[in-house]
C-alpha cells in the first residue's frame, strides 16, 4: 500500500471540480426564474443588522428597512419633501397651506389600504394620538408641537375630501417648521388593524410594539414584504397600489421586486457595485470616479460628485477650561486645514467650506450672507491660529523636532491634553479627526485623537462627558433646516450642567448657560422667532444674526459638507437614474421621500 503523491494531491483537485460544476458565471448574473434580473432591483445600505421587526409602531432603530426610518415603500407619510427643489410634494396628502397658525393638508380620497379600506383621517389621528395616550409611543414628541388636529370635509371638484388642519401649539413649542418636518416623516398606519391589537393587549402599547408584523401586513404603499432573512429583505410590487393611478398617471413602478442584501462590511458594497450585482447603494465609497469605468455612476460625474446636505462638526464642551475661552475655540477653528479634510477624508465630495452653519447653496443658500460671515469668521491658517492664541495669552512650547510639547495659559498653568471623542471604525470621521488634530498641534493646541468604541461614544454625547466630540447633528434634509442645525447646537432650552445624571439631547456642548453671567438671550430669542417668521427679508436677517453669533462664539467647528445620504448606482441592469444632467428627483435611494418616484422612471437594460 503505497501512498502516492498523486492520490494525495488529487483529493483537493477533485473536490474543487465538484464544487465548480454547481456554478454559473457571476458577473451581473442572469437572475433566477423566481427573480428575473430585468424585474429585480438590488439596493443596499439602509439595513445593517438582522431584520427583526416590520412593525411601524416600533422605534425607528428596531424596525427593519423599509419600515424603520423615513422610507415610504410600505407605509407612507402625508407629504414628501424634495430637498432639491424645496417643494413639498404630495403623498397620502396634499399641502394646502402653511402659516404660523396651522398647516393644512388634504387627504387624497383615492388613498387605500391593501385590504381595500380607504385611508381616512381616523388613521392619521390614530398615529398622532398615540403620542398623547402613551409616553413610549414613537410619536410622543409630536405632542409638544401639535395642539390639535381638526378635520372637516370639503368638496374638491366634486370629490369629497377630508381636510386636516394641524394646529400649531402656540403655548408650547410654537414651531410650524417642525410640524412640517413631522408630516413628511411620520408614516400613517391602519387604525383598524392596530387599534384592536392594542385593545387585545389590554392597552399595553409595549406589547404591541413587540409584534413583528411581518406576514401579509396591511399597507398603503407601492410595495409589500414578500420574504426576509438575515441575509436579505425582499419586497414585491403591489399592482393595486392607489398611487399608481392617482400620482403616476397609471404607470407601474418598473421593478417587480426590490431586494436589499445585507452586507457585513463596508468594502462589500463597492465590490458588488463594480460587478453589477448591486444596482444602487447608500454608503461612503471613496474615489468613486475610479469606478465609473465599471458602469458605476453618481449625481455628478465631476467634483463634488454629490449634493451636500449635512455638516459633520466638532462639538466643544464649553464648560471646561481652556475650551470655555472663545478665543481658544476660534484658534482651533483657524488652525484646521479644511482643504485637506475635503480632499483626503471625503474624496473631494463637497463644495468649499464657508463659515457658519448655513449651507451656501441649494435651499439654504438664500439665507447665507457671505460678506457678513466673512466679517465674523476667523482667518484660517496655522499662522493666524498662532496669533489668536498668542493674543489671548497662551504660550505653546515646542520640542526640538518641531512637535508640540505643551501649552500654558495666561497664568502660566500647563493646559491638559484635550481629546476628540469619535467612534472607532467610521473611516471618514477618523480621517477628519486625524487631519484636524495634526493641524491643531502644529499651531500649538495640545489635542489628541480619542477614538472610542460605540459603547463609550454614544452615552458620552447626552451626558457631556467629553472635551470635544465628533457629531453630525440634523443630518436629514428637512424643511426646518437650517434652523434645526442651530437649535441642535445652540439652544439653551433644556440646559443642564455636565455630571450627575444630567442628559441633554441638544446643545451637548452646554453652550450659553442661562445661569451664567455671559448668557446671551439673543440666541434663544432668535431660535424662537425664526420658525414663525414668514417675511423672507426678515428671515435672512435673523439667520445672518444667528450665524454671526455662532461665528463669534464658535461653540462648534464645522469640518466639511457631506451629502444627506450617499447615492451611487450601477447602469449594468437598470438605467435612467436621476443625475445633475437629468435632475427629476433628488439624489437619494428610491425609497426615501421625494426620490421614490425614481422607481417609476427606471428602465431595464435589454
Amino acid at each position: 500500500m503505497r501512498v502516492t503523491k498523486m492520490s494525495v494531491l488529487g483529493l483537493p483537485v477533485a473536490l474543487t471540480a465538484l464544487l465548480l460544476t454547481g456554478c454559473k458565471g457571476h458577473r451581473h448574473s442572469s437572475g433566477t426564474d423566481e427573480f428575473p434580473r430585468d424585474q429585480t432591483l438590488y439596493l443596499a445600505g439602509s439595513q445593517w443588522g438582522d431584520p427583526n421587526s416590520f412593525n411601524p409602531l416600533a422605534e425607528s432603530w428596531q424596525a427593519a428597512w423599509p419600515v424603520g426610518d423615513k422610507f415610504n415603500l410600505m407605509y407612507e407619510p402625508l407629504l414628501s419633501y424634495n430637498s432639491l427643489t424645496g417643494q413639498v410634494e404630495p403623498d397620502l396628502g396634499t399641502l394646502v397651506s402653511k402659516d404660523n397658525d396651522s398647516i393644512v393638508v388634504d387627504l387624497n380620497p383615492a388613498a387605500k389600504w391593501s385590504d381595500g379600506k380607504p385611508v381616512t383621517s381616523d388613521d392619521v389621528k390614530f398615529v398622532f394620538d398615540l403620542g398623547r395616550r402613551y409616553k413610549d409611543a414613537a410619536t410622543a414628541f409630536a405632542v409638544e408641537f401639535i395642539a390639535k388636529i381638526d378635520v372637516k370635509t370639503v368638496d374638491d371638484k366634486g370629490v369629497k375630501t377630508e381636510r386636516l388642519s394641524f394646529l400649531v401649539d402656540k403655548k408650547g413649542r410654537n414651531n410650524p417648521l417642525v410640524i412640517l418636518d413631522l408630516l413628511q416623516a411620520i408614516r400613517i398606519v391602519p387604525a383598524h388593524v392596530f387599534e384592536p391589537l392594542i385593545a387585545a393587549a389590554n392597552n399595553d402599547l409595549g406589547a404591541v410594539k413587540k409584534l413583528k408584523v411581518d406576514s401579509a401586513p396591511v399597507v398603503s404603499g407601492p410595495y409589500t414584504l414578500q420574504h426576509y432573512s438575515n441575509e436579505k429583505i425582499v419586497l414585491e410590487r403591489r399592482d393595486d397600489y392607489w398611487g399608481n393611478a392617482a400620482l403616476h398617471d397609471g404607470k407601474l413602478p418598473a421593478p417587480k421586486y426590490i431586494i436589499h442584501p445585507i452586507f457585513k462590511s463596508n468594502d462589500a458594497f463597492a465590490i458588488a457595485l463594480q460587478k453589477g450585482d448591486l444596482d444602487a447603494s447608500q454608503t461612503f465609497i471613496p474615489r468613486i470616479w475610479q469606478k465609473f469605468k465599471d458602469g458605476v455612476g453618481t449625481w455628478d460625474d465631476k467634483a463634488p460628485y454629490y449634493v451636500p446636505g449635512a455638516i459633520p462638526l466638532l462639538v466643544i464642551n464649553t464648560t471646561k477650561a481652556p475650551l470655555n475661552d472663545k478665543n481658544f475655540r476660534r484658534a482651533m477653528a483657524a488652525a484646521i486645514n479644511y482643504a485637506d479634510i475635503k480632499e483626503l477624508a471625503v474624496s473631494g465630495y463637497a463644495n468649499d467650506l464657508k463659515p457658519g452653519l448655513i449651507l451656501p447653496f441649494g435651499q439654504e443658500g438664500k439665507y447665507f450672507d457671505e460678506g457678513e460671515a466673512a466679517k465674523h469668521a476667523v482667518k484660517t491658517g496655522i499662522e493666524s491660529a498662532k496669533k489668536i492664541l498668542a493674543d489671548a495669552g497662551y504660550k505653546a512650547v515646542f520640542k526640538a523636532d518641531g512637535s508640540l510639547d505643551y501649552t500654558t495659559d495666561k497664568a502660566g498653568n500647563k493646559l491638559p491634553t484635550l481629546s476628540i471623542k469619535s467612534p472607532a471604525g467610521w473611516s471618514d470621521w477618523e480621517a477628519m479627526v486625524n487631519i484636524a488634530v495634526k493641524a491643531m498641534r502644529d499651531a500649538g493646541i495640545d489635542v489628541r485623537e480619542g477614538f472610542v468604541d460605540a459603547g463609550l461614544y454614544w452615552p458620552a454625547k447626552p451626558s457631556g462627558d467629553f472635551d470635544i466630540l465628533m457629531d453630525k447633528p440634523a443630518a436629514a434634509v428637512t424643511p426646518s433646516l437650517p434652523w434645526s442645525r442651530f437649535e441642535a447646537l445652540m439652544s439653551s432650552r433644556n440646559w443642564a450642567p455636565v455630571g450627575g445624571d444630567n442628559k441633554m439631547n441638544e446643545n451637548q456642548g452646554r453652550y450659553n448657560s442661562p445661569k451664567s453671567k455671559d448668557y446671551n438671550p439673543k440666541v434663544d430669542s432668535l431660535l424662537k422667532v425664526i420658525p414663525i417668521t414668514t417675511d423672507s427679508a426678515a428671515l435672512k436677517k435673523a439667520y445672518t444674526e444667528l450665524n454671526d453669533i455662532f461665528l463669534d462664539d464658535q461653540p462648534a467647528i464645522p469640518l466639511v459638507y457631506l451629502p444627506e445620504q450617499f447615492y451611487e448606482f450601477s447602469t449594468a441592469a437598470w438605467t435612467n437614474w436621476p443625475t445633475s444632467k437629468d435632475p427629476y428627483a433628488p439624489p437619494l435611494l428610491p425609497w426615501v421621500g421625494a426620490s421614490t418616484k425614481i422607481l417609476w422612471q427606471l428602465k431595464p437594460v435589454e
Partner: protein
Amino acid sequence: MLKQHPTARFILQRAGWYLLTFLVAVTINFFLPRLGTSNPVDIILAKSTGGLSAQAAREKEESYLKEFGLVKLDGHGNILRDTTIRTVKVWDAAKQASVSKPDTLIKPIKASSLDQFFTYVKMSLSGDLGTSFQKYPKKVLDVIVQAVPWTIALQLPTIVFGWIVGNVLGALAAYRRGMFDRVFFPVALLVSSIPFFVFGMLLVYYFAVVLGWFPAMGGYADEIIPSFSFEFFGSVAYHYVLPFFSIFLILAGGQAIGMRSMGIYELGTDYIKYAKWLGIKESRVLIYLFRNAMLPQLTGLALSLGTMIGGALITEMIFSYPGLGMAMLSAIQNNDYPMIQGVTLIITTCVLIANFTVDIMIGFLDPRVKAGLQMGGN
C-alpha cells in the same frame, strides 16, 4: 468500589472537573460584561432621543430599563424608586471643578447583578436564553440557531480537510525526505506564515473582482431563497469555494509542518528501527508510526473543532458570511448582555466538550496513561 474500575473513575473524575469549569465559566461570562461602565440602554437611548425633552427621554429610558429587566419592580410591575436623598457631582463651569449637589432626580432602583444572575439561571434552565437588547425583540436562541449552521459549515469541513491533507502531506515528507521534502517543507512553512485574512482579501480581489470567476461575498446568491433544492445547495457550494480556500491552505500548511516533525521523530525511534530490521512489512511499520505520531495531532484537531465556533470572525467579515462571529462582535460592542451570554455559553460548551473528549481519548489511546491508571497512579 470505584477503585476496581479505574477507567470509570478516570472518566468520572474528568467529567467532574469539566462540570466545575463549565459552571465557573458561565458565571464569569455573566458578570464580565456587566463590570463595564456603559449600560446597553444608554447606547440605545443616545441613538434615538434626539430632540426629545429631558422628561420624555427619562421616561423612555425607564421603559427600556424595565423591558430589559435592569430595574427592580414591585409586585404590580411598577418600578421601585430610590427616595433617599443623595448627592451627585456636577461640573461647575465658574469654579472649573466638580461640586456636590443634592440629586433632584428620583431614580429607579437598578437590579443588582446578582438578581439578574438568578433570573438568568432560572430562565436558562427552562431553555429561554433571553431576548437580545440590540436585535430587540429577537430571542437570543433564534439568533444563535440561525447563525451557527453557517459558522459550522464554514469551519468544520475546512478544519477537517485541512487536517487530513496537511497530515498526509507531512507524513509523506517525513517518510520520503529527499527532493520532495526539501521543496515542500519551506513552502509549507511560508504558507502557514501568511495571515489568513489577508490571504482571503487577496483571493477575493483576484478571483472575484478581477477575474470574476467566483462570487465576492455572501453565503449564497442574492436572488435565491433558502430551500431544499439543488439550486440552493449549488449556490452555497459556489459561494463556499473562496472562503474555504482562504483558510484551508494555511491550515494544511501548519498541519503538514507538525506532522512532518512528529513523523521524523518517530521514524528515528528505536522501535521503528527494530521493526524495520526485523523485516516487518513497510505498510505495517507505517501504521505503527502514524498511530503514535497521530496522537498530538488528534489533540490539535479536537481543540480546533472546539474553538471553531468563535474562530471564523474575520473570514465571516471579509466574505459577509452569515455566521456567529459577526453576531458576537456586534453584541460585545453594544454591550448586549443576553447575546454575549448566549454566545459564550455555546463556545464554552463546545470547547469543554472538545477538551473532555481529548482527555478521554488520550486516556484510552496512550498506553502510558493507561498503565499509569492501572498502577493506581495519579
